[in-house]
């Protein structure tokens, strides 16, 4: 068979939808009734439970973002009272970080895909996996309770002594919520690590794993090692508030900077917990839609691990202006520069994956391109902040708000949406509307830049973050930002609508609509509860599109 005729099979066309049928039995219809969902041990069902819950919290957090932008439309504090505004940004931060970004990709896509990608039936500890979701729900409910009872206004950073001695809001409730939600994250990480170590199918060596698995593995290490420190910091805040133990109180011999150290020891690695799984998604998407193995697979895999390792040693870059010694500032600045390098490697490796590929532009790819542009800006503006002298002027201003959102929304959220669109056919067995989804990707991209680009300029002008009112000369840029947020809101609401619509009316996807190589695409959509009818034996590398061609060629022969 000539190379050309083999390759004709690889042309990425959606398989003929008329011949695709929904499998009779799959994990969604395997059992019926609410209890079969609430007591399930199936990683795929738990992933869906997570998907529904984090989507719920995303829109609550997003509503707060909308309220913040609405208040900032005018320089005067005229929409709500200062305390209310402070609660808005606190709730926005707590919900988005602890209840959306941290669990987003790992707990939904990771939960769904990791066992399938390595050829396992389920995660190592299905019951602990379900427990994770319940802990998350308890954490989420407590957060909502704190919100309904009157809110919290500490900021998501819980800075002491403000949070311990000077506020009368529901700090302990919110702290408990984060403490509990933290354990959900620890258990998820633990489950992933054990599963990836012990449950790989025969032939699935470490360097045959999809990069999505590598990225989640690196993030899991961070979750397991970092989150307990957050738990400690949160418990100390609660104890200080309740019984005044004085660990952070200078009048009792405590040190308020200690809280900053403990908090950022988790919260800096936490941004890598959030972004790494997103990077994993991008590797899968870019490879699939350029029909090419990821350029420099090993470098991309190890850069995830390098980010995880270096990520633990840069926390004090949040404290450059807080009176840490000049020399420790030097060390942390240097390490921060080093942690930027693996991210740069990834960006270039993805770009060169496109080279000599055969590229198509389905929705996940559009989101992935958005990610690459926005994450490049987000990452490079991080270098501004890691550079000691520049950080003095930029920290605690809108520059840092913009930087963080470029990484977390422009990077992570775009990656999450890329992943959701990419694996939606696998999860539900149905396709969404391609034109609508492309439109929403473009709308989000435009809205996002309009929202956050002006904030870089505002930050350099010196506008402080968390300001309820601001000098009038900052208004024009704030108006632009609010206008952008409105567009962004549309961009994020659209997927909710057409994805829900697709559940009933979407075309039937078939098992491998994107002609991707991952193990998850070789089984039916939606998968069986046990994932595989027989244990798969892996005798090919990840992203081996030639293997896929041969497989198809054989299928044709068999059928014919």
């Amino acid at each position: 068979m000539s190379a050309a005729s083999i390759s004709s099979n690889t042309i990425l066309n959606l398989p003929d939808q008329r011949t695709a049928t929904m499998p009779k039995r799959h994990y969604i219809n395997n059992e019926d009734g609410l209890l079969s969902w609430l007591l399930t041990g199936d990683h795929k069902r738990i992933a869906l439970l997570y998907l529904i819950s984090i989507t719920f919290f995303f829109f609550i957090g997003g509503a707060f973002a909308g309220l913040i932008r609405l208040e900032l439309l005018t320089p005067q504090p005229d929409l709500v009272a200062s305390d209310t505004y402070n609660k808005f940004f606190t709730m926005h931060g707590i919900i988005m970080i602890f209840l959306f970004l941290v669990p987003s990709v790992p707990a939904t896509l990771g939960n769904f895909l990791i066992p399938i990608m390595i050829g396992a039936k389920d995660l190592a500890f299905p019951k602990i996996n379900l427990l994770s979701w319940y802990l998350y729900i308890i954490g989420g409910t407590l957060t909502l309770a704190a919100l309904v009872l009157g809110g919290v206004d500490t900021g998501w950073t819980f800075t002491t002594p403000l949070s311990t001695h000077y506020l009368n809001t529901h700090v302990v409730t919110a702290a408990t919520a984060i403490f509990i939600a933290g354990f959900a994250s620890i258990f998820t990480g633990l489950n992933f690590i054990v599963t990836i170590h012990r449950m790989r199918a025969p032939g699935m060596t470490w360097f045959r794993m999809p990069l999505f698995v590598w990225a989640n593995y690196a993030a899991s290490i961070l979750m397991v090692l970092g989150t307990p420190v957050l738990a400690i910091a949160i418990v100390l805040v609660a104890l200080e508030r309740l019984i005044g133990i004085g660990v952070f109180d200078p009048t009792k011999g405590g040190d308020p900077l200690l809280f900053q150290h403990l908090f950022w020891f988790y919260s800096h690695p936490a941004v890598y917990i959030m972004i790494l799984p997103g990077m994993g998604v991008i590797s899968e998407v870019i490879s699939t839609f350029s029909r090419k193995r990821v350029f420099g697979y090993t470098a991309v895999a190890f850069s995830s691990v390098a980010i995880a390792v270096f990520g633990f040693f840069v926390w004090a870059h949040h404290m450059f202006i807080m009176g840490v010694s000049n020399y420790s500032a030097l060390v942390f600045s240097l390490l921060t520069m080093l942690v930027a390098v693996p991210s740069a490697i990834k960006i270039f490796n993805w770009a060169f994956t496109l080279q000599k590929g055969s590229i198509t532009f389905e929705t996940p790819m559009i989101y992935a391109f958005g990610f690459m542009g926005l994450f490049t800006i987000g990452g490079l503006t991080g270098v501004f902040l890691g550079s000691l002298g520049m950080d003095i002027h930029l920290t605690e201003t809108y520059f840092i708000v913009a930087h963080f959102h470029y990484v977390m929304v422009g990077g992570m959220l775009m990656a999450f949406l890329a992943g959701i669109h990419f694996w939606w056919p696998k999860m539900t067995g149905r396709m969404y509307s391609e034109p609508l989804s492309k439109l929403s990707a473009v709308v989000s991209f435009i809205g996002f830049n309009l929202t956050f680009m002006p904030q870089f300029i505002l930050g350099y002008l010196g506008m402080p973050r968390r300001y309820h009112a601001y000098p009038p000369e900052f208004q024009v840029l704030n108006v632009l930002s609010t206008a952008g947020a409105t567009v962004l809101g549309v961009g994020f609401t659209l997927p909710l609508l057409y994805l829900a619509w697709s559940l009933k009316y979407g075309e039937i996807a078939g098992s491998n609509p994107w002609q991707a190589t991952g193990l998850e695409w070789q089984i039916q959509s939606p998968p069986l509860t046990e994932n595989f009818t027989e244990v798969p034996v892996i005798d090919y590398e990840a992203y081996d599109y030639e293997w896929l061609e041969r497989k198809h060629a054989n299928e044709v022969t068999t059928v014919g």
Partner: protein
Amino acid sequence: MHISPVMWQFITKWLANSALFPREASTVAPWADALYFFLVGMTVVGLILVGILVIGFSVRYRRSVHPVATQIEGSTLLEATWTIIPLAIFLVTFVWGALLYFRIYNPPANSMNIYVVGKQWMWKAEHPGGQHEINALHVPIGRPVQLTMISQDVFHSFSIPDFRVKREVIPGRYSTVWFEATEAGTYHIFCTQYCGTKHSGMIGEVTAMTPEDYDKWTQESTSGTSLAQNGERLFASMECTACHNGTSTARGPSLAGVYGSKLTLVSGQQVVVNDAYLRDAILNPSQHVTAGFAPIMPTYQGQISEDGLIDLVEYIKTLDTNYRVQQTLGTSQSDLAAPTTPGMVKP
């Protein structure tokens, strides 16, 4: 399209009064901006590079013109290139940023000192000459000014964007920042660390003035007593004179000339006496006992406000001899009216 003249006026005024780049009003500002432009350049070049690669490859290798992908494993040479070049740029940024950081945080020896106390939700500036300001700060241009800052309650952060300086103001310890204003004018002071309800109201104005105007201002706005004079009164009223009087039988160490000197503590530790040390020694004396003395000094934690502590520190700084101390001691012992001011001891 017709725009009403009123609307037109409103829009032009609104746009004309908007800012896009902060003023450069201190000696350090051009240095900070130089690094900023370098970093902006780096970002733009990086973004264009990634953009060219992604868009270029997308056009060149799109399905319709390049239907068959050529599998490439990777390239160590290319990967080494995009590891080493970013690393080199980031290291340049590191060194440049570090130089700027040291420039901003190490004050010149000849800088004048002003104290700043942050509290929810105001800035109090205390000039050694006895000028007290709230949410305002007057400084001369062409002269380095060091701020010694402390918070009375939560974390605050003192920021003057047009000077490109900022420093956290922390409870329980002094932090410092310095600048030299170059252009007369008024500039924003912001609290940039979230500090509670009226965080966004914790703002003020720096007025940078020519030296002549500044001298005029200092003379016109002094309260009449310098910080050191306030400190002297406090020193007497707190009965510090009972021990720290420099006599041969004194139970506390003499404070004359102590500021800036090197002390040996009973623990054997050597310390340099600066503002922070003096403050700690007053609040937490048992940890700061000078060698040769008994740990008998009570703590003044909770009895002296941060302003009072600044007054005391300023007073101790000016003590060259014990002459004034002994004079005070003499007057209070002879039951003559001691120069105390009721209400100086703040909670």
